[in-house]
C-alpha cells in the first residue's frame, strides 16, 4: 500500500460525470468513484458489471424454500396442532414466507456485498479523505508507473474539480 492515489473532489454530479467521461475516454483506469448516492449513469460510463441481482434472486429462492421447509417441519411434521379444522399445510404460510424472503434476501445480499468489498464495521478504508462520507463527489485514480499524472490532473481540472490532491 505504498501507492499513492490522486483524489479529484467535485461538488456536483454533472461535473463529476463529465470528468469521469473525459478520463475514461482517454483509457485511463479509474480506481474508484465516490458519491453520496447511487448514480446510474456511472454504471454505464465505467462499463461496470455486477452479478448481485442474480445472487439476490437466488437468495430469494433459497429464502422461500428454507422458510417453507421450516414452517412445514414445525407445523406439519414435528408438532402438528389443529386450529379450527384448518389444514396443517396452510395458506397463511405465504405471509411468513413473503416476509422471510425479503428478510433473508436483504441480509444475505448485504453480507455478500460487504464481504466482497471488504467493508463493514471495523474495516480500515483503503482510500480516505476528509469529506468523503459527506456531500462531496470523488474520483480516485491510483498512481502507477505508466500513469501520466499531469494529464490526469489536467483532465480533472477541466472537468470542474474543486480540489485535486495526491495522498
Amino acid at each position: 500500500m505504498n501507492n499513492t492515489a490522486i483524489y479529484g473532489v467535485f461538488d456536483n454530479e454533472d461535473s463529476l460525470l463529465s470528468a469521469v467521461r473525459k478520463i475514461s475516454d482517454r483509457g485511463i483506469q479509474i480506481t474508484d468513484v465516490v458519491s453520496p448516492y447511487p448514480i446510474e449513469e456511472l454504471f454505464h460510463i465505467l462499463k461496470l458489471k455486477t452479478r448481485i441481482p442474480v445472487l439476490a434472486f437466488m437468495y430469494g429462492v433459497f429464502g422461500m424454500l428454507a422458510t417453507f421447509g421450516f414452517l412445514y417441519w414445525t407445523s406439519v411434521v414435528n408438532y402438528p396442532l389443529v386450529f379450527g379444522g384448518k389444514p396443517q399445510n396452510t395458506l397463511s404460510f405465504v405471509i411468513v414466507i413473503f416476509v422471510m424472503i425479503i428478510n433473508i434476501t436483504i441480509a444475505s445480499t448485504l453480507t455478500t456485498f460487504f464481504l466482497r468489498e471488504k467493508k463493514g464495521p471495523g474495516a480500515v478504508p483503503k482510500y480516505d479523505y476528509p469529506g468523503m462520507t459527506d456531500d462531496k463527489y470523488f474520483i480516485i485514480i491510483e498512481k502507477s508507473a505508466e500513469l501520466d499524472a499531469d494529464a490526469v490532473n489536467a483532465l480533472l481540472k477541466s472537468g470542474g474539480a474543486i480540489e485535486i490532491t495526491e495522498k
Partner: protein
Amino acid sequence: MTNMEKKFEFTPRLRYITYALMAIGIIAVVVGFTSDPERGWANLLLNNFYFLSLAIGASFFLALQYITQSGWSSAFKRIPESMSAYIPVAAILMVILIFGMGSLYSWVNPSEHGFDEHELHVLHHKSPYLNQPFFIVRLVLYFAVWIFMTKMLRRFSLKEDMEGGLAYFQKSEFYSKVYIFTLALTFSLASFDWLMTLEPTWYSTIYSLKNFVAAFYHGSAIIVLIVLIMHTYGYFPFINNAHWQDFSKYVFILSIIWAYFWFSQYLLIWYANIPEETTYYVRRLEGPWEFNFYLNLVLNWLVPFLILLPNYFARKKFILAFVIVMLIIGQYTDLFEQIMPGTVGEFNLGFVEIGSFIGFAGLFIYMFMRTLSSAALIPEKHPLLEESLHHSGH
C-alpha cells in the same frame, strides 16, 4: 426534430378497421340477446366495465403524473388523455344497462330468485342502499364526476398547447388532486354497485380496492402497449432505454400490488371460513371455473412478475409487448370470474363473449384514435417536456 411535429392521423383505413370490429361486436351482442338476454346483458356489463376500467386507470395514471410532477412521462400524456375519452361512451352504455338491471341484479326483485329467508332478510336490510332509484342516482353521479374531471384535465392540456406557461400545469395539478380523492370514493362504490351486488348476499370490503388496482394496472399496461406500437410506426422517436425501464417498472410493481390485493381478499375469506363469504370462492373453484380461477393468477401476476424481473428483459420491447398482451387477457379472465358465475351461472365462452369483446375494443380504439388525432401528439408547451425528451435513468 421534424418527427416531433408529427401528428397522429386517423386515416380512413384505421377508421374502417374499427368499424369492422364494431360490426362484429354488434352481431355478437345481438346473437347474445336473442339466445339468452341475461348472457347479453352480462357481456355488455363485462365489456363495458373492462374498457371503462382501462379508461379510468389511464386517467388515474395521468393524474398521478401531475401530482408527482413527473417529467419522464410528459411527452406521452396525450395517450392517457385520449384513453379517458371512452368514459362518456361507457356512461351511455351503463345507462342502457339500467334496462337490464332486472335480469342482471337479483336484488331488484329478490322474491323471484329463490333466496332463503335469511338471505331475504339480509337484502331487506341492505335495501336503503340497494334500490333502483338510488342505484341510478349514484351511477349518474359517478359518471358526472369522471367526465367532468377528465374533460377539465384535457381542456387544460389543450389550452397549455396554445398559451404555454405554468398556469395550466398548476391548475391540472390541483384538479388531479381533487380527482384522485373523488375517484377513490366513486370508483370504489361503482365496483361495489355494478360488480359485487351481482351476488348481493356476498360481500368483501377489499373488493373495490382490488378492482381499482386492476384498473390502474391494466390501464397503465395499455398505455405502454400503445406507446410501443406507435414507436414502431415512427412516433415518439426520442424514446430510449430509460423510458422502457420506467414503463416496465410500472407494470412490474403493479403486478405485485395486484397480487397483494388478490391474495388479501382470498386469504381472509379462506381463513375465516364463514359460509356466506366462502360461497363466492367455492363456486369459482368448481368445474370449468377452476381453470379460469388459476389462469387469472398466472396471467396477472406470475407471468409479468417472473418475466419482468430481470433488467435485461424489462428493456426488450418485444417481451414487454408479450407481457401486456397476456395482461389484456388477464383482465378479461379477472372480470369474467367476477361477473359470469353470478349472472349467467354456467361457463360460456363462445362467439358472443369473444365477439362482443372485439366490438368493444373497436369502440374503444375508435374513441381513442379520434381524440388522439384531434390534438398535437406531443404537448409542446408542457413545462416538463424537456425532461421527458432527454430522460435518463436515475
